[in-house]
């Protein structure tokens, strides 16, 4: 075993660093660092720069324009991006729907969708959850009824992240209401501009518009937009979820958060000395650091073990739980580092009150409660581990 980077890996890291220094706009990095929301244009701009460098799709096969990187390169890339406060990759196109299209789509679908995903010309969102189907995803009720060359879709999706910007949505729909739960579901790509679709904002507890409800009222979708076979959508859905969970550990982001927290704690003066010297706070920082080391090693072990560039199986559930718990803990420490200045609620554009970092800490703390809820809640991950790994 050798836990140090090789010369090639170090050279690759320098290459990534150089790219980030040259291409990442300072205004965008500053927003990410201070937990401010990016505009759609800023997201797209960054995706396009990555695309120009050939780095838009880190885990796609090279034949479709992917990087062909192994787990260590992906890890380095992820870590450097986070350290430079690059925007997180929006997963819906590149990491979610694209792998499904690559694996199950027709040649026509690959040609039609993949280049625009790679180039960030089309913004995708994920239409899985419904009011009655969250953890129990197979409970989806949104109906798609065949009518000639079209499906007619009726129903409602919810908690659709950034759906307000989306051009396309990939949905789980019920095509056979009489079949057993998992067996009557299909995977459908729907143009958000089709008549009959209404997007309504949902406001989260931090006052942000991040998620939406999407209503379908007699929406006509060409049969050509079905991915895989009719009623076999559950296979696509599960395949997508395994991809959703790659990079789930969030090691890069956690490192960057912790390092920012340490800086902040060194600059905050409490009772005449830096907060970082306050023993109780320092002990929690040190504890988080040890947890981060454990997370990083577990992540590397897991992704390296995944067969030839594939995705980890149920082991990714360990990463999801460990990674989210740690990020949530760090956002708790950020809030504590702000002291009473965690209290002001300021919207974008308001002048800061108190130290600059303090403005968004409570909002992020509350917003990050989502990490243990979405993408399969931490309870669901534990159920998966119990069943798939422990055989309970």
């Amino acid at each position: 075993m050798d836990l140090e980077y090789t010369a090639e890996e170090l050279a690759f890291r320098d290459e990534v660093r150089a790219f980030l220094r040259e291409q990442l706009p300072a205004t965008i990095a500053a927003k990410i660092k201070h937990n401010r929301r990016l505009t759609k244009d800023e997201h797209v701009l960054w995706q396009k720069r990555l695309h120009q460098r050939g780095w838009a799709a880190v885990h796609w096969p090279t034949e479709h324009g992917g990087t062909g990187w192994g787990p260590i390169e992906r890890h380095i890339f992820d870590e450097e991006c986070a350290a430079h406060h690059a925007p997180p990759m929006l997963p819906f196109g590149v990491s979610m729907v694209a792998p499904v299209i690559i694996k199950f789509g027709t040649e026509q679908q690959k040609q039609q969708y993949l280049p625009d995903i790679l180039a960030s010309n089309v913004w995708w969102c994920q239409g899985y959850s419904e009011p009655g189907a969250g953890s129990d995803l197979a409970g989806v009720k949104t109906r798609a009824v065949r009518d000639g060359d079209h499906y007619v879709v009726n129903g409602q999706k919810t908690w659709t992240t950034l759906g307000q910007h989306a051009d396309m949505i990939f949905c789980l729909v019920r095509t056979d209401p009489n079949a057993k739960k998992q067996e009557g579901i299909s995977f459908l790509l729907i143009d958000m501009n089709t008549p009959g679709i209404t997007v309504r904002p949902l406001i989260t507890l931090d006052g942000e518009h991040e998620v939406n409800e999407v209503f379908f009222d007699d929406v006509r979708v060409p049969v050509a937009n079905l991915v895989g076979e009719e009623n076999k959508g559950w296979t696509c859905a599960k395949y997508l979820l395994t991809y959703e969970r790659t990079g789930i550990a969030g090691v890069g982001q956690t490192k960057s958060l912790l390092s920012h927290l340490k800086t902040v704690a060194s600059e905050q003066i409490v009772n005449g000395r830096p907060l970082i010297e306050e023993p109780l706070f320092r002990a929690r920082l040190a504890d988080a650091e040890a947890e981060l080391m454990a997370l990083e090693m577990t992540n590397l072990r897991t992704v390296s073990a995944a067969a030839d560039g594939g995705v980890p199986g149920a082991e990714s559930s360990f990463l999801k739980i460990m990674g989210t718990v740690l990020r949530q803990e760090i956002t708790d420490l950020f809030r504590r580092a702000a002291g009473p200045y965690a209290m002001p609620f300021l919207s974008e554009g308001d002048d800061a009150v108190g130290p600059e970092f303090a403005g968004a800490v409570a909002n992020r703390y509350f917003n990050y409660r989502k990490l243990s809820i979405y993408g399969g809640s931490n309870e669901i991950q534990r159920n998966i581990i119990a069943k798939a790994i422990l055989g309970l």
Partner: protein
Amino acid sequence: MDFKLNDEQRMLEETVGRLVRDAYGFETREKNRNSALGFSTEMWQQLAELGLLGVPFSEELGGFNGGGQELMVVVEGFGRALLLEPYLATVVLSGTVIDRLGSDEQKAQLLGSIIGGEQRFALAAYEGQAFYDHTQVTTRAVANADGYLLNGSKAVVLHGDSADQLVVIARTSGDDGDAAGLTAFVVAADAAGVSRRGYPTVDGLRAAEISFDNVQLAAAARLGDEGAALPALEAAIERGIVALCAEACGAMEVACDQTLEYIKERQQFGVAIGRFQALQHRMVDMRMALEKARSMTILAACSLELPAAERQRRLAAAKLIIGKTGRLVSEEAIQLHGGMGMMDETAVSHYAKRLVMIDHQLGDQQYHLQRLSALLAVDDDVA
């Protein structure tokens, strides 16, 4: 020992319970929160009419002569409804400083106006660099021919944006962190040289950054002796801690109830999610947290008149436990609600926010853990 409320306390409890049930549903609260003032002046008048603004003050002044237990009973009811009105700022914090330090005349006038609901107050004590340490005061009041000249600034002053009067803690002598040298003044919020920047807080309340630029105060603006305000300030903070503990208990109780109701009703995988043992045990832990919080609140409420060392120990322990249990209940309430718990429209998310922010008022769990560590007593074994 006797843990029962007496008749008067029960009556207070019923009064508050009825009031918030009838006039303070979640929708009303949201309407008031989104108003320009951030709360309802009508509600404030109702509190005055019911005598609730006089709970801690003497009967001669028109108050109820209540102590920690009466305060607990009242504010716990407010916590259940997530009351937005400036009770803590006006009655508990400012009122206590005035009550402890004011002359008979000042008390009659100022506390009279609080009890009657005519004027609202805010306590401007903590400063930006001070975190939770109330002795780190750099705001200065310098005596001059007409009284005092006040300069400095105060941070995150709860309800400081809408208060008519401010109770300002300023240094008249000594250095940062000195116990002596702090003096309290009553300053009209619209006095020349006072500037306020108000803002909402994460939990839907209001606060302000306040600065004083050569504010000329009359000598009569001073409360009590020069340099001797600290004990009164600490009494206010201690009462404030009892109030925050009680408010947290009320809020935790509702957060637990709403979560329990939700997991009994929410169906996934063909059953109510409350059937999953993974959630049952979590719900049990939430309830246990509530019981612990309630025990410590009662302890704190009954300790306000004890000698300093024991009183401080108990109050620090209480606020520490409230900080810990408040976080647990908030996070679990959101988690067990799943996506619904993240929504602004779901009441439980607002309970969670208030509970977490209570930890940022009058010292967080870490601050009080540190205090408690410093006070840790090693008792000799009883032979």
